[in-house]
C-alpha cells in the first residue's frame, strides 16, 4: 500500500511540475465550456430584418419597433417595392425580409387568406432555417399580443412548440458533448501519453525490475487522472448550471454515476493505447485519430448521428461517447428518469468490460 501511495504522490509531482499538463488538464476544459457556451454557438443573433408592407400603417410601425427591440433582430427598414427584396438580400443589407399582403390587417383576424411571405438568405442553410423559425415564432408572439381576446392570429397554421430548450440554445447541446470529449482527452490521451513517456524514457524498465506488480504501476498512474477528471466533471457541471443556464433537471446522482462509468471507460481506453503504443507521438496520434476525430465528428456532439449516411451512423454506434452524450442529454436537459437512459448505461458498461478484457490480455509484464 505504501508503494502505491508513494507512486501516486510521484505522479502528482509530474503533473504539478508540468505547466503544459496543468494547462491541458485544468484550464482547457473550462475554456472549452466557455468557448462553446458563448463564442462558438449555433445561436443566431442580430438578424437584419426588413419589412415590405404595401400600407405603411401604425400596426406595421409597431411591429417594426417590436422586432428592433428583440436582441435577436435588427430592423433595417421598410421596403417599397418587391424588387428591393432581392436587392437587400443580395447586398447583405438584410438577412430576412417579411412581405405582408395588402389587406393583412383586416384579414389576419378574420381567417381569410393572409399569407405572410418570409424570404431568407439561405446561403448557409442551417442559419437560414433557424432564422425563419425565429421570425415565424416572433411574428406569432407579437401578433398574439395584439389580438383581441379569444381570436387566434392566423399567421402560421402549424404551431411549433419547442420542448426542453425553448430558446434553442446550442450550449445545452454542447455541454454533454464537451464533457464526453474532455474525459477522453484527460483519461485516455493524457494517461496513455504519461504511461508511454515512462516506456520511452526507460523509467518503466527500472520500475518493472521491482517488487511492484506491473498492473498496479498502471493503476497507480491512473489514479491522479481519475481525480482530475472528477474535478473537471464538477467544474463543468457548475459552469454549465450557473453560467450557461443548462437546467440539469434529471437526477444528479445518475448524472454523476454515468459520468464516473464513462471516466473509467476512458481510463481503460488510455491503458489499452499505452500497451499498443511505443512512443509518446504514437500514443498521441492514436488518441487523436482513433478517438478525437470520430468523437468530434460522429458522436453526435456537433452533427446529429441520426442524419448521417448509414455507414457513418453504424460506425458512430461503436463510439462510447455517442452513448454517453445521449444519456447526458436525456438526464441533464430532458430531465427524464434513469429508466429512459438504461440502454445507454448498459452499452457503456458492456464497452468498459470489453476494453478492460482486451487490455488485460494485451498487457505486458516485460519490455516486449
Amino acid at each position: 500500500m505504501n508503494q502505491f501511495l508513494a507512486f501516486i504522490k510521484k505522479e502528482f509531482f509530474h503533473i504539478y511540475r508540468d505547466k503544459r499538463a496543468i494547462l491541458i488538464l485544468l484550464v482547457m476544459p473550462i475554456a472549452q465550456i466557455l468557448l462553446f457556451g458563448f463564442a462558438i454557438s449555433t445561436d443566431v443573433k442580430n438578424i437584419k430584418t426588413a419589412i415590405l408592407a404595401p400600407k405603411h400603417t401604425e400596426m406595421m410601425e409597431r411591429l417594426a419597433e417590436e422586432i428592433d427591440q428583440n436582441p435577436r433582430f435588427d430592423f433595417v427598414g421598410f421596403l417599397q417595392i418587391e424588387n428591393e427584396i432581392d436587392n437587400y438580400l443580395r447586398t447583405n443589407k438584410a438577412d430576412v425580409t417579411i412581405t405582408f399582403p395588402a389587406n393583412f390587417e383586416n384579414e389576419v383576424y378574420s381567417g381569410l387568406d393572409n399569407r405572410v411571405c418570409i424570404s431568407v438568405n439561405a446561403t448557409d442553410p442551417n442559419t437560414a432555417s433557424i432564422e425563419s423559425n425565429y421570425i415565424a415564432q416572433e411574428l406569432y408572439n407579437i401578433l398574439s399580443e395584439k389580438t383581441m381576446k379569444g381570436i387566434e392570429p392566423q399567421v402560421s397554421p402549424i404551431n411549433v412548440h419547442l420542448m426542453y430548450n425553448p430558446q434553442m440554445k446550442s450550449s445545452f447541446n454542447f455541454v454533454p458533448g464537451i464533457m464526453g470529449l474532455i474525459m477522453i482527452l484527460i483519461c485516455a490521451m493524457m494517461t496513455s501519453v504519461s504511461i508511454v513517456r515512462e516506456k520511452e524514457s526507460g523509467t518503466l524498465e527500472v520500475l518493472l525490475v521491482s517488487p511492484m506488480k506491473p498492473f498496479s504501476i498502471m493503476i497507480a498512474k491512473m489514479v491522479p487522472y481519475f481525480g482530475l477528471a472528477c474535478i473537471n466533471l464538477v467544474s463543468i457541471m457548475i459552469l454549465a448550471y450557473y453560467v450557461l443556464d443548462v437546467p440539469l433537471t434529471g437526477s444528479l446522482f445518475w448524472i454523476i454515476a454515468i459520468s464516473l462509468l464513462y471516466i473509467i471507460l476512458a481510463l481503460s481506453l488510455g491503458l489499452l493505447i499505452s500497451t499498443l503504443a511505443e512512443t509518446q507521438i504514437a500514443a498521441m496520434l492514436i488518441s487523436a485519430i482513433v478517438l478525437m476525430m470520430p468523437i468530434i465528428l460522429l458522436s453526435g456532439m456537433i452533427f446529429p448521428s441520426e442524419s448521417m449516411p448509414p455507414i457513418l451512423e453504424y460506425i458512430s454506434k461503436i463510439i462510447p461517447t455517442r452513448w454517453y452524450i445521449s444519456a447526458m442529454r436525456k438526464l441533464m436537459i430532458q430531465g427524464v428518469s434513469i429508466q429512459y437512459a438504461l440502454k445507454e448505461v448498459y452499452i457503456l458498461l458492456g464497452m468498459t468490460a470489453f476494453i478492460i478484457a482486451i487490455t488485460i490480455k494485451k498487457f505486458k509484464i516485460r519490455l516486449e
Partner: protein
Amino acid sequence: MIQVNDIGKSYGKVEALKGISFSVDKGEIFGIIGPDGAGKTTAFRILTTLLLADKGEAFVDKLDVKRDFKKIRKMIGYMPGHFSLYPDLSVEENLELFASVFGTTIQQNYHLIEDLYRHIEPFKTRRAEKLSGGMKQKLALCCALIHAPKVLFLDEPTTGVDPTSRKEFWQMLKKLKAQGITILVSTPYMDEATLCDRIALIKDGRFLSVQTPQETVNRFNENLYETSSTDMFRLLTDLRKNSEVKDCYTFGASHHLLLKNDSSLEALKKKMLALGHQDIVIRPTEVTIEDCFMKLTKE
C-alpha cells in the same frame, strides 16, 4: 550467483545474441566488455527478466529468469544504460520513491549508500535533470542499491561520465563487492576492464573470451610495438601496405603494431624512413585489454 547457458536472442532478422554462456560467483565483479551494438544491453535485459530469450536458460541466485521473474525482481538492483530516473523529481524524491517501491526506507539501508550519497546530498533538493553526468550516475546507483540487492546489474554505468567520477564510481563498486554484493557490469571502456575480477569480451552477440583481465592479457603472447611519426595517417597506410606487418591500428596518440617476424624491426624502420617519414619511433609497449580485443576480433 548468475548462471547463463547458451542464451540467444533475435530482434526480427537481427541476431543480437548468438548463444552466450558464463557464470558469475557470489561477491564477484564480472565485466562484459564490448563496443556499442555488441549485445550487452540485450544480455542485461534477459538477466533482469525484462526480455525473454529465444533459446538457452539463465538463473540468478538459482532462480529461473523466465519462471521466477517475480522473485528475481525483488532481489536484484538494475541500472539501465541510459539515465532512467525521473528528471522532474528532486534527488531526494527519486531516492524516496525507489525506497518505497521496494518497500523499504532510506534510513533502513542508509549504510549501503552512505559513501555515495554524501557526494550528492548537498544537491538533494535539486531536480535530477539538473545534475551533472557523474552525479546522475551516482544517484542512479543509490536508487539501485537502496533495497540492499543481492546482485547488481549495471549497464554501462560510466558512459558519459568524467574520468574522476569514473574512478570514484569504480572505488564504490569495490566497496560494494566487499559487502558481498555480486556485480555484473558492462562497459565500452577497455581501461575499466582491469578493475573487474573477470571479464567477458563481447562482439556481435558472441563472447570472444571469458577470463580474468590478467589471463586475457597473458594469452596475447606476442610482442606489441608502439609507433609514431610526424605524419600519423600516412604512417598507418604505409605500415599496412608493408608485407612484414601483421597488423597495425590506431591506439590513442600512437599506432600499435604487430610484426610477422620481430627480427625485421630495424629493416622496417629503415623502409619507413626511406618513404620520407620523419621522427619515426618504434618501441615495445605493454599489452592492454583493447589489444586483446582487437586481436580476438580478427581471429
